[in-house]
């Protein structure tokens, strides 16, 4: 090759083609996706918790997607009753779909583990609840106070077993409470209305067997 413009033009065309096909065309199609009626936008506290989730890199071990039960065990594992669809994510910015399951999927954790106290203990020290867990504790999201320093309004977290700090009381910081609120908001098991079933429509003839969202009879949480 001797022509720079031919080289750069071709290189530009190659990437532009991919951007049009995989970003701009889907963007045009996804504008039709509407949130299902049961899906509320995140509250301010949940959004703050989402920021804590991002800041501490939870996404590097936890996915937020249930895949098609036809070729995975996601549904059998109890991570959701159906595969998730684009409508489940309309309020997610940026995406936290994740690519690793060093820890379990979290897209329905608010339904699976709805006890905020469990979540707080688990965030403070996962091995206080599951000895086999390799999740890091996040003690920096909590304060360890002397018992007489606890003020009314403090959210005290009682750590069970021998891993509780001796002579100190664990109090959740606002970050820990926000993160817990966010985790409890993760529920995407509700029925997906026809208007939000854009996935199938967009998938067209290639979809064969991939429609994991057809158990629409399930009531919204």
């Amino acid at each position, binding site marked *: 090759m001797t022509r720079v413009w031919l080289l750069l033009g071709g290189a530009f065309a190659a*990437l532009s083609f991919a951007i049009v096909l995989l970003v701009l065309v889907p963007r045009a199609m996804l504008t039709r996706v509407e949130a299902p009626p049961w899906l509320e936008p995140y509250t301010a506290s949940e959004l703050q918790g989402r920021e804590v989730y991002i800041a*501490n890199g939870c996404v590097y071990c936890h996915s937020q997607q249930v895949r098609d039960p036809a070729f*995975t065990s996601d549904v059998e594992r109890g991570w959701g009753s159906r595969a998730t669809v684009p409508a489940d994510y309309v309020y997610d910015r*940026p995406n936290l*779909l994740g*690519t690793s399951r060093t820890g379990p999927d979290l897209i329905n954790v608010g339904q699976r583990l709805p006890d905020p106290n469990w979540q707080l203990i688990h965030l403070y020290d996962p091995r206080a609840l599951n000895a086999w867990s*390799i999740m890091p504790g996040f003690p920096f999201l909590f304060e360890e106070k002397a018992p007489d320093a606890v003020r009314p309004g403090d959210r005290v977290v009682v750590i069970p077993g021998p891993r509780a700090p001796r002579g100190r009381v664990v109090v959740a910081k606002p970050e820990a409470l926000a993160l817990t609120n966010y985790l409890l908001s993760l529920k995407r098991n509700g029925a997906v209305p026809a208007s939000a079933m854009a996935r199938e429509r967009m998938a067209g003839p290639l979809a064969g067997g991939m429609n994991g969202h057809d158990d629409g009879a399930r009531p919204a949480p």
Partner: protein
Amino acid sequence: MTAPRHAPEPQRSRTVPEARRESATVPPVVDQIAGVAQVQTVRGIAEARELAPKDLEIRLQADASSRLPVLVCYSAAAVWLIVGSLFGELASLKLHWPDLLTREGWLTFGRIRTAHLNAVNYGWGSLAMIGTSLWLMPRLVHAELRRPRLAAMGAVLWNIGLLLGVGGILVGVSDGMEWLEMSRWFADPWLVVGGGMIGVALFSTVAARKAEHLYVSVWYIMSAFLWFPMLFILGNWPTWSGVESGAVNWLFAHNVLGFWLTAVSVGVAYYFIPKVLGRPIYSYQLSILGFWTFAFFYALNGMHHLVGGPLPTWMITTSVTASVLMFIPVVATAINLHMTVVGRFGALRYSPTLRFVVLGAMGYTAVSLQGSFTALREVNRITHFTHWTIAHSHVGVYGFVTFIMFGAMYYVVPRLVGHEWPSAALIRWHFGLVVAGIAIYVVALTWAGVAQGLALLDPGLPFQASVERTRYGLMGRSLGGLLMTAGHVVFAWHFWLMLRGRQPAGARPPFHEARPILYTEAAADVVATSRSHAGSAP
């Protein structure tokens, strides 16, 4: 010691003219020895080998013109390599010692791991590649590097952005998308401006070219410097939400591997393998085929990171198809690079550059075939979401990209500082540690990934099983990472000696002393003569 043999003369005009000229004019070992300051030696060798001194002069001027920005990039790259390795090793330890250093937010796994990725990708890998590109381009187009100070300034801005970005990640500021975590508001703009300044220097050098033909390395490197800014700006544009943000995320993340790290590294391999061997590239036609299929298929690969995910199925199918089609460019490039080496493997014993680059090229073939294979749905249902992916990415970014960059730096730095690497032993230690390290790393973590994936796929097993089965694999990974980190410390120390020190008088270049099979007798004589004056080189 056996008598020196003549290096075979490269065949005439079968392939790329530029490649022929590059490889024909420079006796490989001579190029390994001569630094900028040793012009006389080089000229003497040129005469002894009946080569055109003009070509050597072009080369020396090219090297002198790029000296400043290349050394800035390489020095920063070496620092980021150490920093990134320490982050990576700590993150690895935390996965089997989860109570290690949990009290401080900035040391938590999710931040350290992310700091590791950004430090090694945008710090080590990118800066080593930018440095090598700035050194290579003037040589390939027969023009001095234009605006070298602008390029050096650009590299400084890039580093400021990185410091802010990685520092931000550690204190908990992240944009939240994998590979795009550095703040789009206070870190990324520095990289865009700094990278732009480097791009101006590079492209204006190409515009001022005196060589008509564009060698294959130029195709890859120029395209990469067009692709990366397009991708980086697209990925950081703050408009994406929902699953479309996932699509942009993986279009970016896969293409930063393909269209940035891979493109530059393949270009660099295309230069050094024929260069050091003194032999032309196997086939020009294959390099054309390889390049254009690479460009059009690789761009579409990204959605294979979301197989089974909540995206329209046709998007994922497109990426899986494109991933399988990657066989074409990969096999074309593999044949081209490997067939150039076939029959000359003995030379690997004498050139650290060749060792690293040839091993890196093998890493490219391996990681690409593994990648195509992993994109298949039947394989992906096991390996997706597991440590397999992390092992795979290290075959690519380490066994391929990093090895090629080590090879390039062993070749380039002596030409910039004017003397050889001080210690053959340190190079051997570096090589041995990193090869053993990455081998252990990949085997251990791939095994862990398969065990984890099979456990996850079996709904009869509790999640706990998928965690416990990875334990020894994760420990193995930490061991591999420790060896790699030790190798990096050796390399960085050697690089430091190289920058501040001077070759001791009469010291011999490493790897060539045992049996200089690539020397011609005449050239060897000149080298021997010049060595007696080596101490006086400025």
